[in-house]
Each structure stands twice: as C-alpha cells, then as structure tokens.
C-alpha cells in the first residue's frame, strides 16, 4: 500500500473496523436526515409562498431537484471508489462502489417520476423528450447496467471489478450524453422549459431546497452504511469477526 495514505484511513479500510465505524455512524446520519428532511418539508410545503406563475405545483422541486443532484453525486462517488477499487484492489472500495449503485438508481428513479409528474401539468403529457429528462433516463440505464453486470457474475468480487470498470466508462459517457442530448434537443426544437429556473427562486424557496439537499446526503450515508455492513457480512462470512457477530445475535 502506498505510504501517502494516512494510517487511520488504511485502518478504516479493514472490513471489521469499517463495520463498527459504519454501525456507529448509521443512527446519527438517519436522525440527521429525518430532522433535516422534516424541517425542509415544513419550509417547502408550508412556509414558502406559492409561485406567482406556477402556483403550488412548483413544490415538487423540493424533492425533485435534490434527488437529481444525488443521482449525479452518487454516480461520482461510485466512479471514484470504482477507480480506487481497480487501481489498489481494495475490497472496501469495491463494496462501496457496488452498494452506491442501487441508492443512486433509486434517486434517479425518483427524479424521473417526479419530473414526469411535474411535466403532466407543464407539457400536458407524462413523458416528453426534454433534454434533462432524457439525460436522467440514460443515467438510470447506466446505473442499471452497472447493477446488472455486478449480479451477472458468479464470483462477487470479480463482478464488482467488472462493474467498477463499467462505472468508469460510464463517467466518461455522462458529459458526452449530456452534450449530445442538448444538441439533439436544439436540433429538433423541443421543449426547453426548465423546472429549476434561477430567476424565479426567492430566499424562502432556496433554504428548504438546500436543507433537503443536506438531508438526502445524510440519508445516502446512512443507506450506504447499512448496505456496506450487510455486504461485508456476506463477503467475509468465513472470518472470525463475522462469526462472533452471528453468534452474538443468537445469544440475544
């Protein structure tokens, strides 16, 4: 292992240490996510005034926009840990990358459905080939490809490495897709109405949005912790520390 990686990080990379660390972090992150989420919902649904153009309909953005951000953010996290997993062959990085994918897919799915709900009112149809929605759809396919490839292998670690490689190809692809879809949209003069226009945002709308963004980040850390813990138990089932946990839970 390279010497520039601090010792504590190296230690955290060992499965039993990370398992305990994630176990301690998990409830705090969940509590934080729930509290911040409730505050954001109150701010967004009750305190923020109706938009003078769109009425109350715009309130969908308080879940739509943070989910869209998370979809991209999680793909970034997945790609970075995929890179670490491939270069340094660290098991924990593989697990983090592979367990991030379903969470990212969930957020992308939320983005698509809420975007479509908003679209019904704006465009009068459930689906329109708007550049952003199309990009989100492609992002969902990228996630599904990574998840599908991971599960196609008999050997979990081999699957993780192959899927990590696919995630890296995908991260190069994301900006290309975004660029090409935008070009395609201008070519065919499609709808260019944006759900998240900066001009119409007032302070009372922005703070619930930002709070919700932090809440979703906390939720992601929480969900990732639970997933990585479950995955580590399965992957390391031959090791002593896992046996102790299994034995401890029977005693209770």
């Amino acid at each position, binding site marked *: 292992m390279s010497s520039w990686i601090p010792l504590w990080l190296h230690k955290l990379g060992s499965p039993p240490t990370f398992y305990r660390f994630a176990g301690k972090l998990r409830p705090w992150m969940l509590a934080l996510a729930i509290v911040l989420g409730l505050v954001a919902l109150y701010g967004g649904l009750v305190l923020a005034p109706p938009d003078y153009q769109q009425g109350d309909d715009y309130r969908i953005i308080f879940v739509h926009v943070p989910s869209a951000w998370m979809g991209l953010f999680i793909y970034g996290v997945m790609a970075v840990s995929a890179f670490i997993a491939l270069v340094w062959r660290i098991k924990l990085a593989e697990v983090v990358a592979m367990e991030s994918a379903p969470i990212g897919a969930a957020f992308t799915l939320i983005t698509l459905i809420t975007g479509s709900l908003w679209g019904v009112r704006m465009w009068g149809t459930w689906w329109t080939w708007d550049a952003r929605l199309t990009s989100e759809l492609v992002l969902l396919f990228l996630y599904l490809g990574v998840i599908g490839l991971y599960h196609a292998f008999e050997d979990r670690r081999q699957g993780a490495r192959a899927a990590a490689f696919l995630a890296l190809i995908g991260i190069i692809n994301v900006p290309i897709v975004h660029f090409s879809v935008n070009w395609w949209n201008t070519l065919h003069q499609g709808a260019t109405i944006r759900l998240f226009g900066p001009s119409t945002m007032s302070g009372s709308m922005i703070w619930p949005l930002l709070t919700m963004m932090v809440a979703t980040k906390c939720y992601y850390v929480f969900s990732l912790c639970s997933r990585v813990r479950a995955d580590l138990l399965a*992957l390391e089932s*031959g090791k002593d520390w896992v046996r102790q946990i299994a034995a401890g839970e029977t005693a209770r």
Partner: protein
Amino acid sequence: MTVATPPLLAASALSFYRQDEPVFGPLQFELHPGQLALVEGDNGSGKTTLLRVLAGLLHVGEGELFWRGEPLRRDHCAAEIVFLGHQLGLKGDLSPRENLHIAAGLHGARDGMDPARALLDVGLAGYEDEPVRRLSAGQKKRAALARLLMIPAALWLLDEPYANLDRHGIALVNRLLEGHVAAGGAALVTSHGAVSFHGGEPQRIRMHA
C-alpha cells in the same frame, strides 16, 4: 550444471485465494533448465489454478515468482512460456495446419520447424487439412501438443496432458517432455495418473487439498 545459474522459475510462499478461501499454498519450489516437475494432488487441490497463476491468467494471491532470478514480469517472459490447459485453444473450423500457423504467427516458430513437420512428429500425418472438429478427442490433443513443438518456449505448463490419450499418445507426451528437457527446457506437468518418465526422476510438487 553450475550452482551459479539461477532457476528458470522460482516460487516463494506462493498462495492463491478465492473469496478469501485459500485454494493452495504457500508453495515453495525452484525449476531449473533441464528439469521436469510433476504437480501432484487430489481433485480440487488447486493444480489447475497453480498452472493458471504461473501462466499469468490469474493474479498471484500472495508470495512472489521469480524468472531467471529476477522478480517475474509478464512482458519479459511471455514469449518463453507456453500453456496447455483443459481447453486446447484450437479452432474447430480450422485444420490443424491452420491452427499451427496462427500459433506460429503469435508466438514465433522454432528454427527449422514448420506445421507439417510438427504434425508428422505427433502422428497426425494425413490429417493436416481436416477440420479439427472432425478429429477424435485424442487427435485434438495431439494437434494441441504439436503447438509445443512449434513454439520456441523454455517453460511448458501442461495441465493434464495425458487425458484422452491412448498408450501411444502417453508415450508421445513422454517423448516430447524428454526431448524438451534434454534440450535444456523445463516443464511443469499436472497429472493424477502415474507417470513413467525415463529422463531421470522428476521433481515433485505436492498440493494439499
């Protein structure tokens, strides 16, 4: 043979893991030019895995490999190692001659050796232009063995070379191995059958299940 010549291939504390379960090892051995090693062990003791690790198809789990005394680097030794596994690497739609031409194109050929001669040596004269898929299992094996004669490699890694062969075929493998070892080559052979080898007592590598 002097002590100063480093072993062709050496392994130190070599082991391999699959899903954190040890498949074999730690293994320790040295293979000198002109030496034959038999890898012995029961089914599932990791013989095939060892050969695949040595060939470079699998990553070394733990421990180190040395090639002519230096830490092994694949780009240095790839030309000198030939691997013959369970899958023979022959295209069924091509003739033995065409298959050997491809092997020679990828690996190079020994001086004065051509596909026709190699096929004659393994007893496939008359079958040079028959598609491989029409050959019997033993004949396919012989066609694969012809590759060993064709390719200029110092180390042969043979996984179960005796499988599917009749008495004459087994004698052929032994003859090929003796010739290779006499010419200063080395070979690592897995087999769960008895091997009667006339060119001196082979080194034995024991795998534990």
